[in-house]
């Protein structure tokens, strides 16, 4: 296989050299969390489609649904090449990374036939309806109701932080079918809800960066078909947990590509060489250099730790899934600290922001520093992640 992968790497590199799109004149989002405008969407959708049509997306997904059925190492090689050239991220993130693998694992044959290909091509955009205004990290408490009525369910309630909600065709929806269930988890069900159902209203929410990209979605007796249910009624919590395992990288099966522009320590080091502080390049300050070295160590450790997942004998026997479990928690916090540091070293010019002509690197680092909270808060806050890992991986008692 090594030879095949080597050949693939070369092939992809060549393809990218010919097909990588130029950066557009308009501002690009840093991740799928902040697609605001139609022109941003079109650009990103075109790119995803191009990659898919070239055969470089969903390579490990089954061929009968639109994938290529190859071993996952092939997709890994493509992902590395995409990252190397800093290609645009795969905007249909919720479909490609979370909903898709969940449908492949737990959906019916009909659901796989209906949804998977559109996820890969980018024709069908997906959003996620998990969090509610009163229950952010506390998913088990979701109060949005789904009442069975013949061949439909009537949905009533509100979901929040719905990324891509204003463009989405489908939503993975966690709703309560049985408020009288013996425990709160057993009352939940999981749907692949069409977003064009009457009674669904999407209200945009402005982010700390000043940009848009996510929404509040209100369901006012919205009727969705009953065959959008995944698994049985009452199994919603289990399905949602499967989604979260993909979302947090605890399990693999994602279609491929990147979810955001990757920030690297090398980028920040390059910035530190450019930026001057009190008359000298920032990197000449021993304190800044040392901080950069610390980030280098963390970044390398993080990557080596993920690489270790392939070496069963090198995993800690009492916690073999530690590298995957900690990926979201550690990675999101590292990125936040790194972006914040990249702002800090800009010295007196650090307050200059997006849209300011003299902002250093266009103010993108400031934007990154703020956007970083999307990952330390979304998908289970850092605080909740600590609980989950402490309890599930380390076996510490619940508080």
């Amino acid at each position, binding site marked *: 296989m090594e030879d095949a992968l080597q050949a693939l790497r070369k092939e992809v590199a060549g393809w990218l050299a010919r097909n990588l799109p130029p950066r557009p004149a308009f501002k690009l989002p840093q991740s799928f969390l902040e697609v605001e405008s139609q022109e941003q969407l079109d650009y990103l959708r075109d790119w995803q489609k191009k990659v898919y049509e070239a055969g470089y997306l969903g390579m490990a997904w089954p061929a009968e649904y639109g994938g290529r059925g190859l071993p996952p190492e092939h997709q890994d090689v493509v992902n590395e090449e995409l990252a190397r050239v800093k290609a645009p991220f795969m905007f249909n993130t919720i479909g490609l990374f979370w909903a898709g693998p969940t449908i492949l694992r737990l959906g019916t044959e009909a659901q796989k036939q209906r949804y998977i290909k559109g996820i890969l091509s980018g024709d069908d955009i997906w959003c996620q309806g998990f*969090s509610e205004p*009163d*229950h*952010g*990290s*506390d998913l088990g*408490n979701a109060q949005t109701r789904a009442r069975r009525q013949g061949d439909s369910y009537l949905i009533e309630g509100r979901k*929040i*932080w719905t990324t891509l909600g204003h463009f989405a065709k489908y939503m993975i929806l966690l709703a309560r079918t049985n408020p009288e269930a013996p425990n709160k988890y057993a009352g939940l069900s999981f749907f692949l809800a069409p977003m064009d159902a009457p009674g669904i209203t999407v209200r945009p*929410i*402005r*982010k*700390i*960066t*000043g940009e848009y990209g996510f929404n509040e979605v209100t369901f006012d007796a919205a009727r969705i078909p009953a065959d959008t249910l995944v698994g049985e009624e009452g199994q919603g919590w289990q399905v949602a947990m499967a989604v979260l395992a993909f979302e947090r990288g605890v399990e693999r099966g994602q279609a491929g590509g990147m979810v955001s522009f990757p920030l690297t320590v090398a980028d920040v080091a390059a910035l530190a060489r450019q*930026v*001057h*502080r*009190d*008359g000298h390049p920032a990197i000449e*300050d021993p*304190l*800044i250099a040392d901080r950069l070295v610390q980030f280098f160590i963390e970044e390398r450790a993080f990557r080596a730790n993920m690489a270790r997942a392939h070496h069963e004998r090198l995993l800690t026997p009492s916690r073999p899934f530690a590298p995957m479990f900690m990926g979201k928690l550690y990675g999101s916090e590292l990125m936040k600290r790194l972006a*914040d540091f990249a*702002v*800090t070293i*800009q*010295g*007196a*010019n*650090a*307050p*200059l*922001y*997006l*849209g*300011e002509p*003299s*902002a250093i690197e266009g*103010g993108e680092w*400031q934007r990154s*520093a*703020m956007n970083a*909270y*999307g990952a*330390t*808060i*979304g998908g289970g*806050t*850092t*605080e909740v992640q*600590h*609980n989950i890992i402490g309890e599930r991986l380390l076996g510490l008692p619940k*508080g």
Partner: protein
Amino acid sequence: MSQPLIQWNDEQAMLADAAWDFVRAKFPMETVRRLLESRDGFEHATWQEMGAMGWLGIALPEAYGGSGLGLGSLACIMEAMGQHLCATPFLPSTLAMQAILAAGSAAQRQALLPDLASGQRIATVAFTEPHGSWELRQLDTVATMAKDGYVLQGTKRFVLDYAAADVVVVSAQCQDMPALFAVEKAAFATASSRREIVTDETRRCYELKLDGVCVDSACRLLGGDISQAMRHLELAGAFLMAADLVGAANGAFELTLDYAKTRKQFGHPIGSYQAIKHPLVDAMMGIELGRALVYHAATFLDASEDRQAEVAVRMAKAHANDIMAFMADRAVQFHGGMGFTYDCHAALFYRHSMWARHTYGDAIHHRRHLAPLVL
């Protein structure tokens, strides 16, 4: 040191009480939000009131319409304004007055200071340059002597409240020496200025392109040691911003503390969880220490502008930066999904932090200067 670490008199205490009352009354969060959209970022009526209460002249001698209480007494005003994210031209106008006081001739002081102290006119400072150094004596802007005056060439950044200002104190290199000019705004008719986009939407920063602007010889401040004056201005700026930052950190803290008491997740107020409770205790301690350092700096700054004052001011700014960075971060994080929205007040504090921490020196900068002073 035998001097008490903190001294504070009744006059200062009364002033502090008045400042807190005023700011609380004038700057509820709705007002702060409303002002984000306004041109000047502050209400001129509020400014007039501050002038009428005598706050603008606190650090000026009585001879110029001030009350001679000293710079240290401004700590509580800046702290209160920081806590409520109040934007007024208090900072730039105070620094401009300090520049004129420290470097101006008696005539220049007399001509300019009384109107600034009363609030009738507003001043600002054009010190910072694109190179971003906090060392005010590092100057790319040049003043060349010409007939009847000087020609200024260069670019200034972060000129606060330029649009509202009547007088601008500009720094420039003149014959290999740093120089200060107190210029009437009218003289900048030929300069190009534009508002800069900064993270902190409560502030109004401007870029000022001095592309051959001519200023009258009389504008040059000639009353004192300019290098000494600039050192004083660096410390004054750092001191005022330290007080602002400690106040802002406390503002973010109070906001988050309230939220932690009311917001429930998993059936309990989030403030009952140690992952929220303990960092809030750490933040509180950092803020208390920050307040102590600000008052300590105030005490030493008014006592004499010696090495000890410099040490105290730099300590205060370094610490204030760090605690604000910590608290602004925790404020966003602990508000959860809400904290990630533009409409959450945590966002205002976070964005203010990015401006304030990098104005008049960040923590690394000040600690680097402290090392030879304290070790």
